[in-house]
């Protein structure tokens, strides 16, 4: 599985550093955070470093009054732009120009947020795709946006409607973004996760690519469904899809600026104070990034000094998180479906053993502790295995 950087506030330098570090990689650019000129410049830098750019048009809430979004030339003048041929042509024409200027490797076609899956709202995605074709953008270069509110994800009643629509679109794949239930950072709702896996697997089995945007490390599970790429970033608003952040006028970007250390083998993040506690219990090594993962961006935390006294700030934390996730993503998919599932289960089981041990000493990740999400991942995997496992096993090598 591939990893992409989901651009957000303050990510210019991180993007350049990490793409250089990785010898390549992709960055999904954000109109919410970048002007057109900035996107062109950043994309050129990324390309020079061996990477490539995608552009998320972020037309999730077309009638928003978000100043930075509405300043873009492609932003619709009317909310339901897909119903007005002239406005649709204008919006898509501007996006074609911008994608061309940026030099994107694939074209993410816009679509509004779907709060309940209906043929009408799915038609919005198709309208964009058809207009792109009219403008000469080949379907095999296009990813159709599927943006789902949390209730739309969970609801099984329209699962076939969604899968039929995805199959019918003349596109290379989908760009899936999904709102977490109850604004949770790590999802504890097994049905939400199971439905995400089902959507991904269904699309993959029809030959479509799947790029999942706005992910946390919890989406490593998507490898079992055959996802091609997951994307994540620095702040929470690029690690989970926040529809409100695309609607609000000049929202306060970052309200709390704690520094979190990601323990990749535990799928959990910790404030430095808890690393201090762990050190005092001689448990700090249990949180250290294990070989063969490269944890160099956070190595200073395990140098022997008290973690809260060392120079490990949010920049290091972000790079450590993304570098670890890049490595974990690369090995998330195994040679067979069964092996992929088993590997994820082993990751969960090993994480659980250590997490329970740490919890006894109140060394916890608070809102970023994976203990409460373990069973959701397990349940989602079990359902995927039951419903699609035999076919995924058979067709794995072609996915």
């Amino acid at each position, binding site marked *: 599985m591939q990893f992409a950087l989901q651009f957000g506030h303050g990510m210019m330098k991180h993007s350049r550093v990490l793409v250089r570090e990785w010898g390549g990689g992709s960055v999904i650019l954000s109109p919410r955070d970048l002007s057109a000129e900035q996107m062109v410049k950043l994309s050129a830098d990324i390309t020079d470093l061996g990477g490539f750019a995608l552009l998320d048009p972020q037309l999730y809430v077309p009638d928003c009054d978000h100043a930075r979004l509405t300043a873009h030339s492609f932003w619709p003048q009317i909310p339901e732009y897909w119903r007005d041929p002239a406005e649709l042509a204008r919006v898509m024409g501007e996006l074609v120009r911008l994608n061309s200027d940026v030099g994107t490797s694939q074209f993410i076609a816009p679509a509004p947020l779907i709060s309940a899956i209906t043929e009408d709202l799915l038609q919005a995605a198709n309208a964009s795709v058809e207009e792109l074709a009219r403008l000469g953008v080949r379907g095999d270069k296009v990813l159709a946006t599927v943006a789902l509110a949390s209730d739309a994800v969970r609801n099984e009643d329209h*699962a*076939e409607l969604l899968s*039929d629509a995805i199959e019918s679109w003349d596109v290379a794949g989908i760009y899936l973004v999904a709102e977490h239930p109850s604004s949770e950072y790590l999802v504890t709702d097994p049905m939400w996760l199971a439905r995400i896996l089902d959507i991904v697997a269904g699309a993959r089995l*029809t030959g479509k690519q799947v790029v999942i945007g706005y992910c946390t490390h919890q989406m490593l599970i998507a490898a079992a469904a055959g996802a091609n790429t997951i994307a994540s970033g620095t702040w929470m608003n690029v690690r989970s899809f926040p529809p409100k952040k695309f609607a609000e006028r000049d929202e306060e970007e970052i309200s709390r600026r704690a520094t979190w250390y990601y323990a990749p083998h535990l799928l959990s993040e910790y404030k430095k104070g808890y690393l201090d506690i762990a050190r005092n219990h001689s448990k700090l090594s249990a949180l250290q990034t294990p070989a063969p993962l490269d944890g160099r961006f956070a190595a200073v935390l395990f140098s022997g000094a008290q973690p809260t006294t060392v120079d490990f700030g949010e920049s290091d934390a972000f790079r450590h998180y993304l570098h670890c996730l890049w490595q974990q993503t690369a090995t998330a998919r195994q040679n067979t479906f069964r092996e992929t599932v088993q590997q994820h289960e082993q990751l969960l089981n090993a994480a659980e053993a250590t997490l329970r041990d740490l919890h006894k000493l109140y060394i916890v990740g608070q809102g970023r502790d994976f203990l409460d999400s373990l069973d959701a991942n397990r349940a989602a995997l079990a359902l995927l295995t039951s419903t699609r496992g035999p076919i995924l096993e058979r067709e794995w090598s072609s996915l």
Partner: protein
Amino acid sequence: MAAAHALAPALLAAQIPALSNITFVTGGGQKFVYRADHATHGPVALKVFSDFADPQRTQREIEAVKSIACAHVPTIYETGVITGGPKPYLWLVEEWLAGDTLRSRLDAGGAQSDAVIHLVARDVLFVLSEAEKRRIVHRDVKPENIFLATNNSKCWLLDFGIARHLDLTTITAAGAGLGPLSPGYAPPEQIQNYKDKLDCRADLFALGVTLYECLMGVNPYTDGTVDPGERMRRTLARDLPRPTREIDAGGQFGDLVHTMSWRRPSLRPRTAAKAYEWLRSIGP
């Protein structure tokens, strides 16, 4: 002539001069089967269907089905329409098959042997994959339409191109707006009359349910009820459980049957060809 009763052999002989020695074999409702001798083809089966909307369209479809030309579909020699009565009757003359239906085997003996199950799966999936190449959907796969040779050497899938034109009066008044289907074997998309969603996967569902019944001796959708409405409700409400009987070492046959019988079409094998390929890959 009342639609509920078989047509008299003498009347049939008058309408179809190539046939002689016409004797009633079985039938009721919309379909009657006779044995006859054909001047050219020897022993044949004469099937007469009543209560269908468009005999000309049905005949055209039968011609399309003849193009399947597969060893597991009875060869259709001739077709025609009997007119002159209160309703038209479609007839077709096809090769005479020696054996019995899977329905009669299930009624007599419950769960079937491994050999019969393999035979039915292999031959019917082959037919469905051949039909799929010609974009033909059977729409009425069920034990009544699967015929096994007496010596279990092969089986046939019967009555292609017929079901979609039958006005099945077994459907309750509440379901009268539905297309033709056999409750207990028809998939949800057929029950819900999603005509443009019907493809080979509908036949895979019906075959999956049939094979489940062969494995376990019971069809949960029909067990204990003859009410078509109840059968349809059960089909819409729940998936079949995975069969607990295994007939291959790796449990793959059970996986295949389970996968074919998911209520959601997108969870089933995408094509009959893929299902057939899966079956062929299953070892002992």
